[in-house]
């Protein structure tokens, strides 16, 4: 670079500085933080909501995956490289149930309640658990705007929490009843429950795994009494509940609902070393097709023994909208 000449160096306009900062690699957010420390003007440009929208549009639109919270284990305060502060400092009492649209849904056991938490701003809303008794639960949090929101910047707005639960019936047949109730932050109250009309059979219940939102419906995983799996579908607009039986009804299967590009549902199961991705055509709950088979041994690091009977792999989660599946193993550190 040639040395500067006598005249004062050109000053850049806000427009141009914005364009330059937009092009810093999104995979290295430290660049933006350092840029914010340059001067007040740069910080103002970066903190502007318009910049946030531009940045997301420029880099492909998918919201960044900040990290993951362990489910079924106490929610710890650290996720990926970013340290978040939980709403209340009692990690042992927290259970992360779901995360979507910039919000995390936590279950607190003492006192018993749900908390919708915005990890970026630290805002949180406490809500009571539904009044109906239940013995197993799954829940999902989502932006209240079903249409016309790209969910890139709605995390401070109204939200819905859908609570799916299974209750043991007190009647003599011992069958289960499964229902869904929805909390609206605008109303500040739970709506009446929608119950599944057909009993699921003994020992069947909603599994505490995150739900999936696709095409105006929420999908939860069901554990069937015969060690199989089913998918519970809740249509948010019609408030209707139904059960889909996927083709992977095997006891050694971990299944999860996934969204498909064509608007249909999908699922995946893990059988030994192979991850199977299944797709279901939109509007045809019986039309299942096995889309892909992924050999995990070819993907996993060499430290995980190949075809080893003791190396248990588990599908531990997926990120909606980020096309990411998390697989965990009990081998290695």
């Amino acid at each position, binding site marked *: *670079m*040639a040395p*500067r*000449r006598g*005249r*004062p*160096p*050109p*000053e*850049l*306009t806000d*427009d*141009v500085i914005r*364009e*330059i*900062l*937009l*092009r*810093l*690699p999104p995979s290295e*957010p*430290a*660049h933006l*933080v*350092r*840029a*914010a*420390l*340059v*001067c*007040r*003007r*740069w910080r103002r440009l970066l903190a502007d909501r318009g910049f946030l929208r531009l940045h997301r549009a*420029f880099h*492909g639109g998918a919201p960044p995956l900040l990290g993951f919270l362990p489910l079924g284990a106490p929610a710890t305060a650290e996720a990926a*490289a*970013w*340290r978040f502060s939980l709403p209340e400092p009692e990690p042992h009492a927290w259970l992360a149930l779901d995360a979507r649209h910039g919000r995390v849904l936590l279950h607190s056991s003492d006192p018993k309640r749900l908390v919708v938490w915005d990890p970026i701003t630290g805002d949180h809303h406490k809500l009571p658990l539904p009044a109906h008794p239940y013995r197993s639960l799954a829940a999902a949090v989502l932006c209240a705007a079903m249409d016309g929101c790209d969910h890139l910047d709605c995390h401070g707005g109204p939200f819905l929490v859908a609570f799916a639960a299974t209750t043991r019936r007190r009647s003599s047949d011992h069958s289960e009843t499964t229902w869904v109730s929805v909390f609206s932050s605008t109303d500040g109250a739970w709506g009446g429950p929608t119950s599944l009309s057909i009993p699921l059979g003994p020992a069947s219940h909603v599994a505490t795994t995150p739900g999936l939102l696709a095409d105006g419906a929420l999908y939860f995983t069901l554990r069937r009494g015969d060690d199989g799996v089913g998918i519970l579908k809740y249509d948010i607009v019609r408030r209707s509940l139904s059960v889909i039986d996927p083709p992977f009804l095997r006891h050694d299967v971990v299944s999860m609902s996934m969204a498909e590009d064509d608007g249909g549902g999908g699922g995946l199961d893990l059988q030994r070393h192979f991850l199977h991705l299944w797709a279901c055509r939109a509007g045809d709950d019986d039309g299942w097709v096995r889309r892909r088979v992924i050999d995990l041994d070819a993907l996993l690091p060499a430290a995980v023994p190949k075809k080893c009977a003791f190396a248990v792999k588990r599908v531990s989660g997926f990120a909606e909208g980020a096309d990411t599946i998390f697989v965990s193993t009990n081998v290695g550190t």
Partner: protein
Amino acid sequence: MEVDKGKGEAEETRKVAEADRDTVTLKSSDGKLFEVSKEAAARLSTVLAGMIAGGSIDDNGTDLKQIGSEALENVVDYCNKHANSIPSAALISSSISFNTAPFKEPEEWERKFVDRLSHDALFDLVEAANFLGMERLLDVTCHKISEMMKGKSPDQIREVFNIKNDYTKEELEEIRQELAWAFYDD
């Protein structure tokens, strides 16, 4: 393509006001005249395209008071190089809007084009590209400048951009502590 650049007053004598000229004449803030292909100007600059379509192009030199002669020379140079780098077949279907097209890495010639510029010339050119609505040139120049920021501390970035630090020590320390993870590799 015939390239006339920086010939200043020589251009004044060539006031050929033909209606179907295939070039446009641009005048820098310091009064120098540059000629550029009408097709390239319309394709690469939304502002020039608007002026050409709206008939506000002055054959004696369209005034671009915000752009100095060095930057305008680089703009014209870029237009000509761009036109030459694209096969003619692609020219026909090249009404791409760079606003919506995903960012493409700079091509080899574009990299060389910005690499040879001095610091000040690069900063002048990025402003000219922004003023003229030249999305691709803005992309290439901003990309180059953002690369100059990589791995630099706030202090070093201030030096590159000639910016005065207007934070107090306490403010800086507070932000640094809050976002300590961003400074691990300082």
